């Protein structure tokens, strides 16, 4: 019996899993990570995928493709494409029929061709792990994806040599992962999914293991990286107050700050407070300087208040579209 793999083809990161016994097992890639950055790069003759592609982004900005999921199934002259264009370093072009494509080494490529390369990596990750070829796959997509976006995702699978059995909605997959299908009564649940660069909220109705998407909403330009950015700015400001030096202008310091900010943010998901301690972060004529800032969860919450606020409007809209009120919601994932 051939194995069926499940792929979460994310905007920022992708993940592959397989059914083992009666649980799902997330398969680590060759670098030992459970998720693989959805980044593809062409560097001369070499094609890079995942962490390696991400690492060389700065030296190869024109041919490193990330967040192409935002382009999938979109028109070149759509609002989203324009906005996306402003944020990324690679060229975006119109295909013959007006779709948003990218250009790699002067060659036009569809976002599904780029996504296919990530999917191939997920496929081979699974194959290395299982010790057998894999062709059948289930791929998740945002609930708001329309037919052409779903079709484009299927096409990406086909290019990667996968037989896509199903396209599953991400919130449905999340609800399943949390075991929320194991209920007899009808329930309403809200799935709040803040990815690296995108935010989706969905209202689902579950009953008897059957899911129905009541409404979906979101913001394709709001994500975890915005939260990092806010924290980076705060840390740099605190440092400047004390030392009069602007770390944002120092590339090496900024890189350390970025890594530390993401780590601190993740820590604050479970801890009430954390400390960002970066000795020797920079130096001036008076000697080495050290950054030490305590961040409480309350402080972080107040910093990201505006971002959280921005996520509430889509939530309210989704509730409205579903014709329900917040108190009707049984679970939030």
């Amino acid at each position, binding site marked *: *019996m051939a194995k069926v793999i499940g792929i979460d083809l994310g905007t920022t990161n992708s993940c592959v899993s397989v059914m*083992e016994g009666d649980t799902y097992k997330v398969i680590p890639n060759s670098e*030992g990570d459970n998720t693989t950055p959805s980044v593809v790069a062409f560097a001369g003759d070499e094609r890079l995928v995942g962490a390696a592609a991400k690492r060389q982004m700065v030296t190869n900005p024109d041919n490193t493709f990330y967040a192409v999921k935002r382009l999938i199934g979109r028109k070149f002259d759509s609002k989203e494409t324009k906005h996306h264009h402003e944020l990324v370093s690679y060229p975006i072009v119109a295909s013959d029929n007006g779709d948003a494509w990218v250009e790699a080494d002067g060659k036009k490529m569809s976002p599904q061709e780029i996504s296919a390369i990530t999917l191939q990596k997920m496929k081979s990750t699974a194959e290395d*792990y*299982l*010790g*057998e070829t894999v062709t059948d796959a*289930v791929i998740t997509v945002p*609930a708001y994806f*329309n*037919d052409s976006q*779903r079709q484009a995702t299927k096409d990406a699978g086909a290019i990667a040599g996968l037989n896509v*059995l*199903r*396209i*599953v*909605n991400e919130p*449905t997959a999340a609800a*399943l992962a949390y075991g929320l*299908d194991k209920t007899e009564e009808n329930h309403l649940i809200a799935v709040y999914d803040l990815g690296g660069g995108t935010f989706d909220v969905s209202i689902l109705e579950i009953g008897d*293991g*059957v*899911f*129905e*998407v009541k409404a979906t909403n979101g913001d394709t330009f709001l994500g975890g990286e915005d939260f990092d950015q806010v924290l980076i700015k705060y840390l740099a400001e605190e440092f400047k107050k004390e030392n009069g030096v602007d770390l944002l202008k120092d590339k090496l310091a900024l890189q350390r700050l970025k890594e530390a900010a993401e780590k601190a943010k993740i820590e604050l998901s479970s801890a009430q407070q954390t*400390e960002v*301690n970066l*000795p*020797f972060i920079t*130096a001036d004529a*008076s*000697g*080495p*300087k*050290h950054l*030490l800032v305590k961040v409480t969860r309350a402080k972080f919450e107040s910093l990201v208040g505006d971002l959280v606020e921005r996520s509430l409007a889509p939530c309210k809209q989704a509730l409205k579209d579903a014709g329900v009120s917040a108190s009707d919601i049984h679970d939030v994932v």
Partner: protein
Amino acid sequence: MSSKNKKQDIEDQEVEVVKDEPNEKINEETSLEDDVLTVDEEGEPIDPMQALKNEVTELNDKLLRQHAEMDNLRKRTAREVVDARKFAVEKFTVALLDVVDNLERALDVEEGKEDALRDGVQRTLDSWRGMMEKFDVERIDAVGEQFDPHKHEALSQMPSNEPEGVVINQHCAGYMLNGRLIRPAQVLVSSGK
């Protein structure tokens, strides 16, 4: 479920996958029994002997596949155990590298900036202590405590103002990992006045 748009139709399909599997199994089982009956789906008579033979082949096949599956699983698990051992120290090493980086930065500090240098080294040590805590490594400080061979190692004993058996000096701290002693504190114990 009648008036639904396309999106929800796709939802419905995917629900079928979830539901289908158990059903399929049931179908398979019932059809096995049906096979033994003397009529096939079209109502044609079946040779019971042939039906049994078919069934044996089918079951054999299934058994073989399951064996292969089990074998794969066993290999996979074995590989995971090896990997788990090989890379067990990965996270710890990465944490340690932050400390190494900072010590290297400390060495790069030019002469004459000793205060700032010392401050940086102190913070590096603080960050390391925080890291150890995250890895459930707990420090043991013994001075003033009653000597306890479960946590301390006596290097020598000497008279002091402290009562006999009290730790009066510590050569180096002890450490516990997840509640298990990994290094005793090396100490000096009082022999009383």
